[in-house]
């Protein structure tokens, strides 16, 4: 079985995986980082979004071996100790989550959006979120939270 080595949330990790192991499986099963979720099997829901080398990526759509040598950040690595990342804080402030299942992917995706397009309009925010499905919130408060984080990030 191939061995993969990568940096996850600032820590160097390695493990043996089957070649077909997805990055999300490696994170959840080998590293027990269960904050990254799996909501679909067709790369559409975005529950699995993490950052790979600084860009948001769907960890269900990448093999673990493809992330060999990469720098990966998951939802568990976003806050600074006990202090929430401004995007996490904004989601709380604006009630941008209900069941919390889409939330890790939503937050990771939103962080990347604000980095890439700090002044995104409501329309641009909504288009960016096309790859993140939320069944609970109707997106209203997620959009509000991201607009708030545009000011605080």
């Amino acid at each position: 079985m191939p061995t993969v080595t990568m940096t996850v949330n600032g820590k160097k990790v390695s493990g043996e995986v089957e070649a077909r192991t997805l990055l999300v499986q490696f994170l959840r099963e080998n590293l027990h980082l269960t904050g990254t979720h799996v909501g679909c099997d067709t790369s559409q829901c975005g529950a699995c979004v993490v950052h790979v080398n600084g860009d948001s990526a769907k960890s269900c759509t990448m093999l673990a071996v493809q992330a060999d040598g990469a720098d990966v950040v998951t939802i568990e690595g976003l806050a600074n100790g006990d202090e929430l990342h401004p995007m996490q804080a904004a989601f709380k402030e604006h009630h941008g989550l209900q069941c919390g299942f889409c939330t890790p992917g939503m937050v990771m995706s939103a962080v990347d959006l604000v980095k890439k397009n700090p002044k995104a309009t409501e329309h641009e925010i909504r288009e960016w979120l096309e790859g993140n499905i939320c069944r609970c919130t109707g997106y209203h408060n997620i959009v509000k939270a991201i607009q708030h984080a545009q000011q605080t990030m």
Partner: protein
Amino acid sequence: MPDGGTGIGAAVKRVEDKRFLTGRGTYTDDINRPGQTYAYILRSPQAHAKIDRIDTSAAASAPGVLAVFTGADMQVGSLPCGWQVHSKDGSPMHEPPHPPLAQGKVRCVGDQVAVVIAETYAQAKDAAEKIVVDYTPLPAVVDMNKALAGGTLVHDEIGTNLCYDWEIGDEGQIDEAFAKAAHVTKIDIVNNRLIPNAMEPRAAVGEYDRATGEYTLYTTSQNPHVIRLLMGAFVLSIPEHKLRVVAPDVGGGFGSKIYHYAEEAIVTWASSRVGRPIKWTAERSESFMSDAHGRDHITHAQLAMDSEGKFLALKVETKANMGAYLSTFASCVPTYLYATLLAGVYTTPLIYCNVKAIFTNTVPVDAYRGAGRPEATYLIERLVDRAAREIGLSQVEIRRRNFIPADAFPYQTPVALQYDSGNYTATLDAALKAADADGFAARKAASEAKGKRRGLGFSTYLEACGIAPSAVVGSLGARAGLYESAEVRVHPTGSVTVFTGAHSHGQGHETTFAQLVSEKLGLPMDNIEISHGDTNKVQFGMGTYGSRSLAVGGEAIVKALDKIIAKAKKIAAHVMEASEADIEFKDGNFTVAGTDKSMAFGEVALTAYVPHNFPHQELEPGLDEKAFYDPLNFTFPGGCHIAEVEVDPDTGVVKVERMTAVDDVGRVINPMIVAGQIHGGLAQGIGQALLEGCVYNEDGQLVTGSYMDYTMPRADNLPSFSVGTESTLCAHNSLGVKGCGEVGAIGSPPAVINAVVDALWDLGVRDMPMPANPQTVWKTIQSARPAAAAE
């Protein structure tokens, strides 16, 4: 309300958010038990077939495989249905068996045929490919009308596909009223089949402890005690004291996680055979073909009116799809949660409804957010919209003429329910204002100048929730009571744990319920913990659905809190050497009236557990109280939803420009959470109206089996919403609360479709099926054009 505002009415930020935002929630699939194995469930690719032979030998010897089981191995009870409906001739509904693993026949795509248990999920899945199943395909019946006509039978042993033929009302009386009517409006409605799609796929971990003989099931459930009862008593014969069911963090339910599913029984049963814990997690494609679906009604309805547009009588004939088996609450959805709502907010004096529930070779259909009430609302509000157009009244005027007046409560409808409170004019007026209905004409002109059509659609709706008074539902065939329970445990240092039988899977109970405690006991939120979802911790519970958590579960908490205060007063009286009647409790302090003697709540709590000089004959140590609350009636939230859409007639694309909802949800405990619930409901309602639709082909293959084919509402399909509340208080619970979880999904679909019809009326469009996606809208416009030209 204590300092900082954490009592009733405060928009307290959610207690549960931190763990979800930092990736530290614990959902079922996050649970890993020592020695855990994995299950893969082999499902039927056939909609209807006889199983001639299953050869599992190659799979059983595949790498990592511990066991393979089929229906021949798993001879257990049938997955039960919790509500018995009787046909109009008095006979009970047909309840064909629903085995967890198929017994000789499969009846829908996705039916469970075998289970493979292996060291890893990949090994289990690989091995399942080696199972050889010889099927003799049988013709599938998907269409309800064809199923009624007979021929192919889903269940041979019952000799019909008709589960029941139920009615409410007096058909003869109705026909007389129709004969005298000045005008009759008729409509044919299809309420499209939906797939719930909570974002967390269902999962279950079963575990057996050989030493104690105890089973534990971790599962994605809205009601763990109900699962314990159904699975323990009816399917696996495990007594309740040897079965623990835990529903940890659950990623959305919307009804689909109420029911007892085969996979829960399979992993629990198999865990004792294999001797190790077993985890099963649905892949999304499995969710599509194994979660209970929602809606799926075909209805013909007629409304009789006098010459002033007053409603005289309503006659409804509905066919409701049950799918291949009866899911847990399937039978009550198109009857007691549907036909009893057909008065809506109107004074219609006579109502008759006939419902035929029909088996087909499709996945079982059961309650999905709103359950029966969205179907009733869609029917009434589409009918009222059409009636207004036919008799030349405005959408607002026809409603005002028929509203139940605000001073008419309690109001007895002709279909069994008695509404306790409401003010439909108030919600309509507030919504008209919030939607800037007066500015619509100008916006419409602006759209037309761009070659677009703009429409305004109304829905003034009502629903029954806070489910439900046990005596009432019992008389209607429910096999359970629908009370809720709570325990308030005050710890020696004055902090509090509340155990509730309600279950939170997004609703924010850990916050809302803590606010009740904060309000009543004057404690800060940090001193309060809400515990739910574990049958070994919580005394009992009927769970969360039907917008019942606050109206029923919250009331149980209040009752237990009242008992705590009463007991604490006794203790305070004893310590302060006063008469109990003189003890007052306010802002967390017990005082002796007219003196400066006082004790803080924490001191009383400590004394309760350090009762050095208690008169033990009269006063027990401890401060821990339980309550069960059975509601006196349903609650009746209602309101007005107004949709404003812009349609591009060249492409058929519908854009929701404005969505306004003003709802009467009773007293609001946390306005932030209430607004969030309504947003989510609106998104699902707009989803049903414009995007979502489950499609089976004639052979019973599920065509919409993934997110590539089933259109989930995305952020860019929806507008920001305008929501508000305009409340009257529930008259029969102490909090005055009604419920807010379902109103968005119930009220909004007809508002959206009425808006689309309004936009296209001048093009000759008279009706619009759901989902009104671009293809459907474009086709409808094309077929209407010749008709419009001829008019």
